[in-house]
C-alpha cells in the first residue's frame, strides 16, 4: 500500500515495503508455481494419498529439518517414468512392507493408511511398466562373451576343447554387470577387442584348417646317465663336510637294462605322502606345441608281499599355470601308457618349466636314516638354527662362545662318525617289500587323433583337391548358416568369398591359406559375434523367431551355439511350440553341456571366480593347495547335484548333505570319506554344515586371510541370497581397526564400538546379524567355538557370541537357529534366486518393469516345491525370454 504523501521517510519506508511485498509475492509465486507444477505433473492421487502419508509418517525424520541417514523423502520426485524415481518409490514401499519403516519406536501408521499408500505407489509403477513394455524392457543386442565364444568355436569348428581354451587367452576379460558377465551392457567392443579378436581368430583358423601335419617328436629316457655316473658309495656326513661315511642301504639299484627301486625320492609335499619321486627330466624338445602326448613307461613291479595296487603319477610343469597331473595304474603287462594334454610354447614363450616327473606309490620309510646318525644330524641342525637366531638378536658374547663350544664338540662327533647313513627299516621285512623295475620312459607327440583333423574335413567337405572359386562358395554356403546361427543371404556369402579371392590375388596366398583368411573373417564378423535379433522400426515387443529362440535357449543352458537337433526344429518352425520347447529344455538339462550352466551361473552367483583373491596368512597351517582346489570345486559340485536331481532351491540355504571329497571332509571333521573325487555325503547336525553358508571356499573369500569379515559375510548373504543389498557406506565410514597392542577384543566387540553411533546403527542393525551369525566359521571356514586368528590360539581366545536379532524382531543365539530363520524366509530367497537366474537368462538387468514376471515365477516356484528345474522351465516360457 503506497501513500501518495511524498514525505521522504515515508516514501522510502513504503517503497521498502513495496519491494518487500513484491519480494515475498515473487517467492510466493515461485513456490506456488513449483508446487503447482508438481501438482500438475504429479500423478492422480498424489495429493490425496501419497503426500499426506509421507508428511505424517516420514518427513519428520527424512525431511529438510531432520535428515536421518541422509535420506530426503520429500525430494524423490513424482515422475515415475524416470527410472531412479521409480526405484526410490519402490524402495520406500518395500521398507514399509517389511516393517522396517517407520522404525519401531515411532507411532505405527494406520493399517488402512499404509495399504492405501502402498497400493497407490504400486499402481503408478504398473502404469509405467505398461508404458515401458512398448519402448523398454527389451534385451539389447549383445556379443558373445569369452566363454561363449570359446564354446561356440569349439562346437562350430569341431575343435578339441583343450586346444581351443589356450587360444582364447588373448581375448580381453569381460565386464560384469549385476554380478554376471553375459549382460550386454557390460560387453563392449572397441579397437582392442577387435584387434584381439583378429589375433585370436588367426590362431584358431591355423588349427582348424591345416597345411602339413606337425612333426611328431619323441624322447626316451633309459637312465643311461645312472650307468655313466653311478651314485657314489660314500656320502658327506653333512652337506659341506669333508668327512664321508658309507651310504649304507640304497633305495635303488642300477642294472644293465633297468633300474630297481625299493623306494622313490622325497617329494617335499604333504599331499604326496605315500608317493616317491622316481625320475624327472626335461621334455621341451618334445613338447613343441599344445597337444596330446603319449607317455609310455616300460616297467614292472615285483610285488613280493604287497597286495594293494601299484600306481604311477605323471606330472608336467609342476607349480605352474600349465601344470598337468594324471594318475594311472601300473599295467602288469610291463608297458603302461597314458595320453596327456600338454601345453607348449606360444609365440616362443612357455608358461612353465617343461619338465616331466614320475611318481610311484612306494613303501614309505622303507629306507631310513640310521637312528643314532639322525640324532647327531638333528642336533647339528638345531644348534645351527640357535646360533643364527642368537646372532640376529645380537646375543651377548658369552652366549655365542658357549654355542661355539657346543658346535665344536658336535663337529668332532660328526667327523668321528663311522656308521652308515641309511639303513633298511628294521620293522619291515626287506624281502617282502615290492620292487619297481623300470626300463625306460618314452614321451612322444604331438599325437594327432585323426588327420586331417575333424575341423578341416568338415569345412573342406569335398577334400583338398578342388581349389576353384565355386568350391569356396559351396564351402561357405554350407558353413555360414551354422556360423551365423540362421539362414543367410547370398550377399553375406559373397562378402566372405570376396575376402578369400582378394587374399588369393593381392596377397598371393594359396587356396588353403586364403580359406583361412575367409574363416578368420567369419569368426570376427558381427553376424557371428553378436546375438543378432533385428528390430528396426519396432515399437512393440515381438515374439522371437525359431532361430533366435534356439540361440537364446542354447546360450542360456549350454553357453554355446544350438546343436543339430535345435537347428532342425527351428528350420521346421516347431521350436516355438511350448510343449516342444519344454521337451527340449528337459533334454538340454540332461545333456553334459549343461555343466556350463552350473559353472557360469552357479559359479558367478556363488562368487567362485573371486575365491583366489584371498590368501590366508601363514598362521593357518591347515590351508594347503588341495584344500584350496577342493574348496573352489565344492560349490559347483553342490549346485550340479541340486540341478541334476531337481532338488528344491532351499537346499542352498541349508541341506542334509554335502558334495565333497576327502580333503574337504577332513577340514569339516567328517569321517569315512576317502579319495579325491567329489561325492554326495549325508551329514548330521553335529557337523555344523549344510547349504552354501558352510562352504570353506566362500567363507575364506569372505575373510581377509587373517580374520573373519562379518560385515562382508552379512553383505554377501543379503546381496546374493536375498537380492537386498545393504546401502553403501557413507564416505566417512571407517574400517574396523586391528587390535591395538594390549587389547584382546574379538571382531564382534570391536564392531560394537563402531556401531554405537546412531547413524551407523541405522544400517548396521539390518546388516550385522547376517554376518555375525557365521562367526563360528573362522577365516578359512573351519568350525570354532572360540575366537582365533590374529594371534589368538587355542584356548586363549574368548568364547564366541554369534547371537543376533533381525530387523523384524526375530532373535537367534546359535548358527542352527539362524539357518532355521533363513529357511522361514524361503519365499524371499526364492524370489531373489528367480531374479538372479532371470537376469542371467535374459542377459540384461531385471528391473521394476519385470515385477509381474518375477511374481509369477515366484508363485510357480512355491507351487512346485521350490524345485530348481521348474524355475528354469518357467523362465523359458516367460514373455521376456521369448520376445524381442
Amino acid at each position, binding site marked *: 500500500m503506497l501513500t501518495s504523501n511524498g514525505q521522504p521517510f515515508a516514501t522510502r519506508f513504503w517503497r521498502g515495503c513495496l519491494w518487500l511485498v513484491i519480494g515475498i509475492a515473487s517467492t510466493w509465486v515461485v513456490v506456488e508455481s513449483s508446487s503447482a507444477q508438481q501438482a500438475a505433473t504429479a500423478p492422480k492421487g498424489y495429493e490425496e494419498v501419497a503426500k499426506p502419508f509421507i508428511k505424517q509418517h516420514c518427513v519428520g525424520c527424512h525431511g529438510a529439518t531432520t535428515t536421518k541417514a541422509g535420506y530426503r523423502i520429500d525430494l524423490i520426485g513424482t515422475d515415475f517414468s524416470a527410472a531412479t524415481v521409480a526405484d526410490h518409490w519402490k524402495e520406500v514401499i518395500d521398507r514399509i512392507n517389511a516393517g522396517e519403516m517407520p522404525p519401531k519406536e515411532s507411532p505405527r501408521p494406520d493399517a488402512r493408511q499404509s495399504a492405501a499408500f502402498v497400493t497407490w505407489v504400486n499402481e503408478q509403477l504398473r502404469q509405467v511398466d505398461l508404458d515401458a513394455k512398448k519402448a523398454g524392457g*527389451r534385451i*539389447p*543386442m*549383445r*556379443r558373445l562373451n569369452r566363454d561363449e565364444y570359446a564354446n561356440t568355436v569349439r562346437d562350430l569348428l569341431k575343435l578339441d576343447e583343450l586346444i581351443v581354451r589356450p587360444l582364447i587367452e588373448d581375448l*580381453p*576379460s*569381460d*565386464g*560384469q*554387470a549385476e554380478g554376471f*558377465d553375459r549382460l*550386454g551392457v557390460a560387453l*563392449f*567392443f*572397441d*579397437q*582392442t*577387442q*577387435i*584387434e584381439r579378436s*583378429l589375433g585370436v581368430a588367426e590362431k584358431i583358423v591355423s588349427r582348424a584348417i591345416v597345411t602339413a601335419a606337425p612333426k611328431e617328436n619323441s624322447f626316451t629316457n633309459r637312465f643311461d646317465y645312472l650307468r655313466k655316473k653311478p651314485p657314489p658309495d660314500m656320502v658327506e656326513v653333512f652337506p659341506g663336510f669333508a668327512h664321508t661315511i658309507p651310504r649304507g642301504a640304497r633305495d635303488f639299484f642300477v642294472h644293465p637294462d633297468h633300474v630297481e627301486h625299493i623306494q622313490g625320492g622325497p617329494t617335499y609335499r604333504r599331499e604326496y605322502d605315500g608317493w616317491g619321486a622316481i625320475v624327472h627330466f626335461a621334455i621341451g624338445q618334445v613338447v613343441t606345441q599344445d597337444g596330446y602326448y603319449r607317455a609310455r613307461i616300460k616297467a614292472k613291479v615285483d610285488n613280493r608281499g604287497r597286495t594293494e595296487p601299484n600306481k604311477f603319477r605323471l606330472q608336467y610343469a609342476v*607349480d605352474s599355470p600349465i601344470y598337468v597331473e594324471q594318475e594311472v595304474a601300473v599295467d602288469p603287462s610291463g608297458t603302461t601308457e597314458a595320453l596327456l594334454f600338454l601345453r607348449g610354447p606360444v609365440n616362443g614363450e612357455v*608358461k612353465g618349466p617343461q619338465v616331466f616327473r614320475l611318481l610311484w606309490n612306494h613303501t614309505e620309510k622303507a629306507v631310513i636314516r640310521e637312528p643314532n646318525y639322525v640324532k647327531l644330524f638333528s642336533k647339528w641342525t638345531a644348534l645351527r638354527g640357535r646360533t643364527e637366531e642368537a646372532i640376529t638378536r645380537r646375543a651377548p658374547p658369552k652366549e655365542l662362545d658357549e654355542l661355539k663350544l657346543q658346535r665344536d664338540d658336535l663337529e668332532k662327533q660328526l667327523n668321528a662318525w663311522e656308521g652308515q647313513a641309511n639303513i633298511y627299516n628294521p620293522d619291515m621285512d626287506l624281502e617282502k617289500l615290492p620292487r619297481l623295475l623300470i626300463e625306460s620312459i618314452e614321451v612322444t607327440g604331438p599325437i594327432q587323433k585323426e588327420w586331417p583333423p575333424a575341423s578341416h574335413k568338415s569345412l573342406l567337405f569335398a577334400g583338398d583337391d578342388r581349389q576353384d572359386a565355386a568350391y569356396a562358395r559351396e564351402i561357405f554356403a554350407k558353413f555360414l548358416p551354422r556360423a551365423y546361427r540362421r539362414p543367410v543371404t547370398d*550377399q553375406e556369402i559373397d*562378402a*566372405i568369398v*570376396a*575376402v578369400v579371392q*582378394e*587374399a588369393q590375388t*593381392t*596377397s598371393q596366398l594359396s587356396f588353403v591359406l586364403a580359406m583361412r*583368411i575367409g574363416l*578368420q*573373417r567369419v569368426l*570376427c*564378423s*558381427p*553376424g557371428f559375434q*553378436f546375438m543378432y*535379433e*533385428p*528390430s*528396426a*522400426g*519396432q515399437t512393440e515387443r515381438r515374439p522371437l523367431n525359431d532361430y533366435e529362440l534356439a540361440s537364446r535357449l542354447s546360450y542360456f543352458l549350454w553357453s554355446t551355439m544350438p546343436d543339430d537337433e535345435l537347428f532342425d526344429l527351428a528350420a521346421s518352425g516347431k521350436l516355438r511350440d511350448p510343449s516342444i520347447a519344454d521337451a527340449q529344455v528337459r533334454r538340454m538339462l540332461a545333456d553334459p553341456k549343461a555343466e556350463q550352466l552350473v559353472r557360469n551361473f552357479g559359479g558367478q552367483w556363488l562368487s567362485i*571366480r*573371486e575365491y*583366489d*583373491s584371498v*590368501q590366508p*596368512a601363514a598362521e593357518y597351517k591347515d590351508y594347503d593347495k588341495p584344500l584350496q582346489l577342493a574348496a573352489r570345486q565344492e560349490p559347483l559340485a553342490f549346485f550340479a547335484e541340486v540341478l541334476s536331481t531337481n532338488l528344491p532351491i532351499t537346499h542352498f540355504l541349508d541341506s542334509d548333505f554335502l558334495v565333497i571329497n576327502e580333503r574337504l571332509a577332513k577340514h569339516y571333521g567328517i569321517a569315512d570319506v576317502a579319495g579325491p573325487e567329489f561325492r554326495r555325503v549325508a551329514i548330521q547336525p553335529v557337523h555344523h554344515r549344510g547349504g552354501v553358508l558352510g562352504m570353506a571356499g566362500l567363507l575364506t573369500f569372505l575373510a581377509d586371510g*587373517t580374520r573373519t569379515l562379518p560385515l562382508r559375510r552379512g553383505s554377501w548373504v543379503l546381496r546374493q541370497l536375498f537380492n537386498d543389498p545393504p546401502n*553403501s557406506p557413507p564416505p566417512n565410514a571407517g*574400517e574396523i581397526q*586391528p587390535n*591395538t*597392542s594390549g587389547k584382546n577384543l574379538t571382531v564382534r566387540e570391536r564392531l560394537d564400538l563402531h556401531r554405537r553411533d546412531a547413524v551407523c546403527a541405522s544400517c548396521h542393525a539390518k546388516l550385522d546379524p547376517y554376518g555375525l551369525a557365521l562367526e563360528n566359521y573362522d577365516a578359512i571356514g573351519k568350525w570354532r567355538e572360540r575366537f582365533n586368528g*590374529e594371534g589368538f590360539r587355542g584356548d586363549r581366545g574368548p568364547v564366541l557370541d554369534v547371537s543376533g536379532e533381525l530387523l523384524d524382531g526375530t532373535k537367534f543365539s546359535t548358527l542352527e537357529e539362524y539357518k532355521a530363520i533363513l529357511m522361514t524366509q524361503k519365499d524371499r530367497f526364492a524370489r531373489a534366486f528367480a531374479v538372479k537366474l532371470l537376469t542371467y537368462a535374459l542377459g540384461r538387468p531385471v528391473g521394476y518393469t519385470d515385477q509381474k514376471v518375477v511374481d509369477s515365477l515366484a508363485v510357480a516356484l512355491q507351487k512346485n516345491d521350490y524345485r530348481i528345474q521348474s524355475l528354469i522351465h518357467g523362465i523359458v516360457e516367460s514373455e521376456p525370454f521369448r520376445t524381442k
Partner: protein
Amino acid sequence: MNILKRRPTLPRRTFLKAAGISLALPWLDAMSSNSASVTTAGDITPSETPRRAVFCFFGLGINGRDFTPADKGLDYTLTPILEPLAELRRDFTVVSGLKLTYSGGHVGDRTFLTGTNTRSAGAKLRISCDQELAQAVGRETRFPSLTLGIKRGTGFGGNYDQTLSWTSAGTPLPSENRPHVLFDQLFRPDTADTLKQREAEFIRRTSVLDSLREEARRLSNTLGSDDQHKLDEYLTGIRDLERRMQDEKDWLRKPKPNVETLNFGKEQGLDPDKAGLEYRRYQRLMFDVIALALQTDSTRVISYLARMDGQDGTGSWRDMGNPYNYHEMTHHGEDPDKLKWFTQSDIWYMEDWAYFLNRLKSIKEGDGTLLDHTLVAYGSSGGAINAHHNHHLPTMLAGGSRLGVKHQGHLVKEDVRLGNLWTTVFDRMQVPLPNNFQGGEADGMIKELV
C-alpha cells in the same frame, strides 16, 4: 631480432637413413638444429627437447611414520625412507596430504590415473590420463606410450589390476613386465623378412577390416535404435584400429634407434611371472630400459604399475630375509617386528627409486639432463597413515626442472585430490586439459610446483 643464422634442423629422416652409425652421443643432441652434422654434438634448443611424463605406482601404501617428513619446505629433515634420495633432494618434491576419492586402500590401482568410481558396481570405466597424454603427443614417437607393470597383462576380470592404462572405451591396456623383452620391442631392428611379413599382415588385415565394416553397416540398418548403439561401438572400434594400424605401418619403415645392447645376464630371474625373480636386478634393468626409451625419444609417456595392490608381486624382499609379504606388513597391528620390516622394505624400494632418478640425471640433454625434461610421478593408492585410507597418500613429483617445475622440498596439501597433481603434469607437458578430466576428480593445479 635473431641475427644468428640457424641451419635448418636436420630432419629425422636424414639421420635415420644413415642407419648403422652407432650412437656416440646423446640421440637428441645429434638431431638438434645446433649440431653441425650428425656426428658433432651440439646443444639442443629448449624448444626442441621433448617433454616426457612417467607415472609410477607403488600399491598398498607405505610406512608413513618413517616416510612423511615432520617439517615442511625446502630444508625439511630427511626421514629414514627418504634417506636414499639425499643427494637428489633438490630434484623432487614430496607432496603430502593428497587423497584419491575412490580408493579404498586396496582398489586404488584402477582409479589412480583414471578417477573411475571403483566403489560403484556399475561405474563406467574411464580413460587414464597417460592415454590422454599419449593421444596428444603420441604420434610423434614410434610408441605413443608404454604400459609397464610388475605382472604382464591387464588383470582385468581377475582380482587386482596389472595395468594403469585405460583406453577411451574403458578397456585396459596390457602391460609388459620383462626388461629384456621391452628392450627388444624398442630397439631390436626388424629384419627384412619381419618387415615383409608385417606389411603383408597389414594388407591382409585391412582387407578383412574393410569387409567387416561393410557388413556391420548393412546389419545396422536392420536394427532398432538401441541396438544400433552396439554396432556403432563396433564401427568406431574398426575405425580406431585402422588408424592405429596405419600409424604403425608408417613407423615400420623407419629404423629403430641404434643403441648398445644392455647386458641382461641370465634372463631367468627377470620375469616376475615366473618363480625365482631376482627383484632388485629386475627392477634396475627395467629402469635402465625406461631411461633408454625416453632418451631415444621412442616414447614420451610411460605408466608403470611397479607394485600391485593386494599381492604386491615384487616378492617383498623375501630373499633379504623379510618373512612377511607387503600386504601383511601394511596390516601390522602395531607388531614391532612387522613395523621394522615395513620400514626396511620401504627403504630398499626407495634405493631402487633413487637408482632410477640418478640414471635419468646422468643422461645429459641440452644444457640439462633427461631428468630435467621428464616429469616423474611416484604415488600409491594407500594412505601413509593406514593402508586402508584413501588420503594422505605418499606422493612425489621428481624432475621437470627445465619444464618449469619448481621443487618445494616437502609440500603439504591437505585434502587435495591426486587428480590435481595430474593437472599440473598436463600443464607442464603443455597439453590442454581434456573435458571431464579424471571424471571430475581434479579441481585445479598445485600451483606451488610451477
